[in-house]
């Protein structure tokens, strides 16, 4: 523990049904969030399909730190720090590309796509120096689950599979929307910045209480069927998976409706090729079940939000600033579906989105509201009296209830208390 670090009483700040406003607004708590969460646990970084060929790279991040995700010459994914091991200069300025080496423009040090130091100009000045100790900094652990690449700065800790726990089903279900069982991230990202603490965004992703209010304008004019999923009579559920991961389970609603592709607001007649490919891949019964159930709405703590047709990657950059990197999900072998995914995503999200511009407004107003000192607490007790366990023993409740927030905060507290 650093000498500057204030001791926080986390059990006092984060109670079962109340959270202290300072956890969103105190810069010292943000620094603690970085150390105890962002620079420790598994953080989603990127997708394997973003670096399809050896030497491809793409600029990603873990919290405020840029991370270069590369595929090295051997085809292995690397997560490298954008910092020359000589004097700290950033070695890569591009958002993405292909490069067998990265040359630092300051003194010409040269690194391979695997991070190893390859070239030292005027090398007689480094006689006897062990080059292998001057490789680019690497994220200590990398693991991939069905193409989704996560990094952890902690050299030891739970495996990615342990971390995902029950929430791995979200990724399993997601990839099954493709007749080839693969997601591709190929449509480019929108970067939507808000002046709000990252935890407000995490909570909102599975807050089923807000849509009918925050999104009333677009539900009304688009005559969207989404609003009723988040009403008091909805059969959809909220769920806490453990380890901070949360979801809405919309399947009860979609199963009642029983419409193939109803979750996507369309019909099988409009996508005959996709339907045929799904049936050929999974058999009629399973394909029909997949096409009725739809894709997940799952927040994988702390930063990957799978939102049915799109994916958000949250980046905490300051106590009151968060960037949402968002792109349309693209399913291998489903080009017709993918076009609609992109069109709907562009309409919904990003800085100008019909939905997310209003969420962004709520994040920023809440961040400002939390500066007021009375009351000191945020109240997250909705639905406490009716929460229950599903057949797996996971905590569930009505979709508008605050089970996801309570679960997320319990996990947050345990991470902040950990040594």
């Amino acid at each position, binding site marked *: 523990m650093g000498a500057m670090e204030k001791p926080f009483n986390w059990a006092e700040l984060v109670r079962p049904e109340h959270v202290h406003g300072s956890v969103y607004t105190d810069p010292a708590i943000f620094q603690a969030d970085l150390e105890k969460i962002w620079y420790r646990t598994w953080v989603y970084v990127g997708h394997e399909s973003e670096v399809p060929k050896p030497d491809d790279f793409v600029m990603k991040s873990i919290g405020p730190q840029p991370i270069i995700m590369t595929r090295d010459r051997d085809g292995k994914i690397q997560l490298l720090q954008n910092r020359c091991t000589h004097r700290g200069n950033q070695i890569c300025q591009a*958002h993405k590309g292909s490069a067998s080496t990265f040359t630092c423009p300051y003194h010409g040090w040269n690194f391979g796509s695997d991070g190893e130091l390859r070239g030292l100009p005027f090398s007689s000045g480094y006689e006897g120096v062990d080059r292998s100790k001057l490789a680019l900094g690497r994220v200590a652990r990398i693991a991939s689950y069905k193409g989704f690449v996560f990094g952890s700065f902690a050299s030891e800790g739970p495996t990615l599979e342990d971390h995902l726990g029950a929430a791995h089903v979200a990724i399993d279900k997601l990839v099954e929307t493709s007749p080839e069982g693969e997601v591709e991230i190929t*449509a*480019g*990202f*929108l*970067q*939507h*910045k*808000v*002046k709000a603490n990252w935890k407000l965004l995490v909570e909102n992703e599975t807050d089923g209480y807000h849509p009918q209010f*925050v999104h*009333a*304008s*677009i539900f*009304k*004019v*688009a005559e969207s069927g989404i609003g009723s999923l988040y009403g008091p009579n909805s059969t959809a559920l909220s769920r806490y998976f453990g380890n901070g991961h949360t979801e809405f389970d919309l399947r009860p609603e979609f199963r009642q409706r029983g419409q193939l592709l109803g979750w996507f607001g369309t019909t099988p007649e409009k996508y005959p090729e996709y339907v045929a490919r799904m049936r050929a891949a999974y058999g009629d019964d399973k394909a029909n079940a997949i096409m009725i159930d739809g894709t997940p709405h799952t927040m994988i703590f702390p930063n990957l939000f799978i939102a049915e047709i799109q994916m958000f990657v949250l980046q905490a950059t300051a106590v009151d600033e968060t*960037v949402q990197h*968002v*792109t*349309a999900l693209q399913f291998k072998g489903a080009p017709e579906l993918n*076009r609609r995914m*992109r*069109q709907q*995503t*562009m*309409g919904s999200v*990003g*800085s*100008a989105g*019909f939905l997310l*511009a*209003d969420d*962004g*407004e*709520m994040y*920023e*107003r809440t961040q*400002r509201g939390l500066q007021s000192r009375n009351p000191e607490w945020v109240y997250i007790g909705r639905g406490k009296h009716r929460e229950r366990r599903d057949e797996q023993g996971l905590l569930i409740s009505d979709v508008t209830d605050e089970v996801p927030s309570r679960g997320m905060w319990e996990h947050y507290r345990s991470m902040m208390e950990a040594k």
Partner: protein
Amino acid sequence: MDRMALEDDVLLREVTRFIYREARLQDDHEYDAWEALWADDGVYLIPANGEGGDPEQEMSLVYDNRSRIALRIRQLHTGKRHTQAPRSRLCRIVSNIELLECEGDTIRVTANAVVYESNARGETVWPSRNEYLLRRVGGELRMSLKKVVLINNDKPLYTLSFLI
């Protein structure tokens, strides 16, 4: 139209008047009058990540066809588009208007713009290089394309919910 048309100061003045009027309607949140400036096949495009690649393939901040432009306007009219309630206060300067091409009845025009936005979050400056395709419909100029290339669109951007 041809090269003569490009050098035609009368046409340049007409186009300039059109673009100034569009700017004023946007600054004043005159949504319906602004919507009336669109041709039936209008496309409103705000690319992300530089010039933007093919908007059919890559994410744009806005890629509205005519019906989606109408939806955007209807949403603003509900009074429940929270990010515009209250409305942003806006002041934009449009300059460097040039006629680049005339083909058939379509004129390609470029202009630079800087919008100053004030809202509850603070003040935000939105600089852009704009491109228009204008066509005469019933004697009046109408937009069949407005492309707004924000010069900082490769970086994270705040919410952009007013008409730019």
